[in-house]
């Protein structure tokens, strides 16, 4: 009987030693750690945001001017206003505009943009408030080149950090505060596939949002 207990305790001790010497980790996390880069993507993104992106937002194309161009002469409009780093159909625009908040949805705010003299037709646009991912902001500006980066992953991390700035700096101004009927000015980036242009499905990753103080005075 005593021998049995000695065996059980011995086995438990062995199991304890085994468990403490083995750790289970995700393959992707191990790989990331092994390849740790010295590049400071957050600092690069912060500098880009302050010194390249925000000071040049006035150069963004007005949203209805873009829509009119895409309806009338898409090829020329893509050539004139879009930027992209890759070979293919995906292009990015930096846009600006203003309009009235038509609807506040879970993942978007729908804006009825203001018509201007350039275009008689307007489309509602979606300002993203949930899915802030991808390269739209990084690439729409046309200010960042892949050749600046030794490692492709550093370049990808810049996008992730820029998106983080949007998520932490811009989205809180929209989420939970925006009300239907408010007038809003915005600037941001659009991703668009040249072969699949659908002006009713345009989604803007916001970089700057400003509310008209008169429509927000009751807040």
């Amino acid at each position: 009987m005593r021998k049995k207990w000695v065996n059980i305790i011995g086995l438990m001790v062995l199991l304890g030693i085994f468990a403490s010497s083995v750790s289970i980790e995700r393959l992707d996390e191990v790989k990331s750690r092994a390849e740790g880069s010295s590049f400071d993507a957050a600092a690069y993104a912060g500098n880009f945001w302050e010194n390249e992106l925000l000071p040049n937002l006035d150069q963004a194309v007005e949203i209805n001017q873009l829509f009119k161009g895409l309806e009338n002469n898409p090829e020329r409009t893509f050539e004139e206003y879009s930027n992209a780093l890759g070979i293919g159909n995906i292009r990015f625009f930096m846009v600006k505009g203003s309009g009235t908040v038509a609807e506040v949805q879970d993942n978007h705010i729908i804006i009825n943009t203001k018509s201007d003299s350039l275009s008689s037709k307007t489309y509602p646009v979606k300002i993203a408030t949930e899915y802030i991912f991808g390269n739209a902001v990084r690439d729409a500006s046309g200010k960042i080149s892949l050749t600046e980066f030794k490692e492709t992953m550093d370049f990808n991390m810049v996008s992730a950090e820029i998106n983080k700035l949007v998520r932490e700096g811009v989205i809180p101004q929209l989420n939970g505060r925006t009300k239907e009927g408010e007038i809003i000015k915005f600037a941001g980036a659009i991703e668009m596939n040249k072969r699949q242009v659908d002006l009713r499905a345009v989604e803007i990753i916001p970089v700057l949002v400003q509310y008209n103080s008169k429509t927000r005075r009751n807040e």
Partner: protein
Amino acid sequence: MKTRGAVYFKSLFVGLLLPLIFMACKKENDNSEPKIAVVVSTLNNPWFVVLAETAAEEARKLGYEVNIFDSQNNTALESEHFENAIVSGYDAILFNPTDADGSVSSVARANEAGIPVFCMDREVNSTLATSQVLSDNYAGSVSVGKYFVEELNKKGNYVELLGLVGDNNTWNRSRGFHSVVDHYPDLKMVAQQSADFDRNKAMEVMESILQVNKDIDAVFCGNDAMAMGAYQALKSAGLEAEVKVFGFDGAENVIERIQKGDITATAMQFPKVMAKTAAGLAHKYIEGQREFIQKSPVDVELVTKDNIEFYAAYGQKE
């Protein structure tokens, strides 16, 4: 006297005849068609067959003699192909590497021999390649990740099947996917395993996972071959209707499955675009250009039931 005669003859041979023979050989080489080697990681996957054959076809159109070498996912065999290409005097190599690190020595040898190497789709971790034309895997998997989150309504259990662990594409796809999905704590990865980009292995891995845990809502696979393998395993388990499968590549059978609603989405790569671009760059090099962009990303597009009409296997609908 006899010895002196032999010396004269030897001198005459070395001084006069050898250069003549050499010049004759050189002239023959100059007149021969310039040659391009296409060295591809595997021809056991239709996606790479399209890549290799398109590269060869484009190079032939540009006036080159072309041969395709299959490395069978084996860096030793790949290295032999490079030796052959160097010895046989190829003018350029269009290269789909087997391993981002393991293939560097082959590129270095070609570099020493003065043969330019243009990588297609897969990357080598070296600046010795003349240029690399690569799918933007990270951006493509970000698009898949976003759609994945939307389709699962931000919650559920999922499995990730990784490709070859030595290939950069495996990790770029995985990282792009996780850069989105990891923002949603209610999406739980219950298993992450490599299936080497292989359909049969993916089926086996998925079957093993299902033996332990059937409470799965989705599977993200690093390529379409694995997506088909995972789908097959799910079908055998009677779970194909409940579990959403996401792939990466734009292979023919997955495009058909998206049309039928069996597979939820894939990321369309453009092997023909990459192959043609690489062949064009090799041609420019042979024509005399020496400055090339080190890495050119090629867009990867999300394919779902909502935009399937724009796509065919391995690219866009013409």
